[in-house]
């Protein structure tokens, strides 16, 4: 798979959300590790964006309406 470069700004924006929610529980060292984990996530989802999807490409699992057994 061709490599796709992740955007450092996107990493910081996503990390800001995590820090806002959980920063008060974390040490500076843990925050650094979480930042690296967010970087890995952005790299991961950037790889997903390298594939072009069309409107017809549905998720690989179906919704099934519920009806109780009678």
């Amino acid at each position, binding site marked *: *798979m061709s490599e796709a470069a992740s955007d450092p700004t996107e990493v910081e924006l996503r990390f800001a959300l995590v820090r806002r929610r959980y920063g008060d*529980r974390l040490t500076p060292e*843990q925050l650094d590790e*979480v930042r690296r*984990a967010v970087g890995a*996530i952005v790299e991961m989802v950037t790889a997903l964006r390298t594939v072009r999807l069309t409107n017809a490409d549905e998720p*690989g*699992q179906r919704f099934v309406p519920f009806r109780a057994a009678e």
Partner: protein
Amino acid sequence: MTPVFRSIRELAEAVRTRQVSPVELAEVFLERLERLGPRYNAVVAVTRQRALAEARRAEAEIAAGGWRGPLHGIPYGVKDLLATGGGIPTTWGAAPLRAQTFDADATVVRRLERAGAVLVAKLAMVELAGGMGYRQPNASFTGPGISPWGRDAWSGGSSSGSGSAVAAGLVPFAIGSETWGSILSPAANCGVCGLRPTYGRVSRHGAMALGWTLDKLGPLGLTADDCGLVLDAIAGSDPHDPTAVERPFRYDPGDGGRRFRFGVIRGVAESAEEAVQEAFSRSLELLGRIGSVEEITLADLPYEAITRTILLAEAASAFEDMIESGAIAGLTAPEDRFTAYARDAILAKDYIRALRLRAFVGREADRVLSGFDALVAPGRPAVASPLDREFRSAARGNVPDVMGAIGNAAGLPAIAVPNGTTAGGLPTSLQFMGRAWAENTILAAAGAWQRVTDYHLHHPPEVSYSA
């Protein structure tokens, strides 16, 4: 007969013909679990009382001519993410949940009980099945899982105890679970067989959820045949699990005389450790004795990223309460206490994109597999790592595992079988991955492999059975 390190068929014949009684069998394995289990951090709880009650019932039924089949009276253990009633705790390997109990047995446990099998132990596992991002083996309140092949070797995860208990002869077979790698990895590290069934083949009712669209339950045993016999007992639809499909399964490995067509993804072993590559190269030559081997290429897709996105997002949701409440701070592995916070950075759009790409993966895998009986690859890219070191993990993204990514995203069955031992005495593994619902085909291939090799007949020297 000495019952340890015997196949299920051998034990079943001895039980059926009353050469050995289910109670005697249970006593042998209960004693080994109690004596040797702690050596490998393999056991959460020995279910002695329940085991003896089930064994006595089996003994009475068999004496009355009511032999139920090959699992009747055979002891087994389950990964401690399967619910058991009767006050037996189900801990999910997590210190904060050490006292957790459920009112009823998981469907798999009920089905094994119906087949007459005897539950002797709840087996150790990586906390929350590894879903919080552990990076090293010490990630369970029962301690790091240890492979019987080396005192300093990790048993693999997350079905750690299921692998080591089978390898050490503490149980004839065990049940594990796989979301990505958690059956194949301990099978490889412990030198036993591990079968990951097709997604939906086995009910997950009563099992801890890690990734709803990825979780599978399956057996670990000494032989491929053992795994087939167990799958036969646990497969099938379940009104309590809508993903368990109406597609009857009867284990039928065939007559053993056929030749197979195997595919190998180009470069699939390139990133594996040298010893694993060597064992795999030897295996490719040996596979020529039971079939043909052809190299193939796959469409260019971000396979690992797709599966990892689904896994990380679903695990974050499955454990949302523990993460948001901060209860993960009570977990054993330091990294499990905070790493999952990062997953709030996965957007809904990312997850849905991964699900849309998953459809591509399923189609591509089926296209390739339609020309073969199975794809073959190393069962795991590395041998068991030392207990005090970080391991490389495809689920964390620092080692490629295209077979695992495809197999788990597409829900395909695979079986890992031993294929060698390193100079240091650690086992290596070979996997056969098949089309959806083709468990009989990969079991037949793995069975044929085990008829032309004897790796599965080797056991860790320090636990060889003595009466």
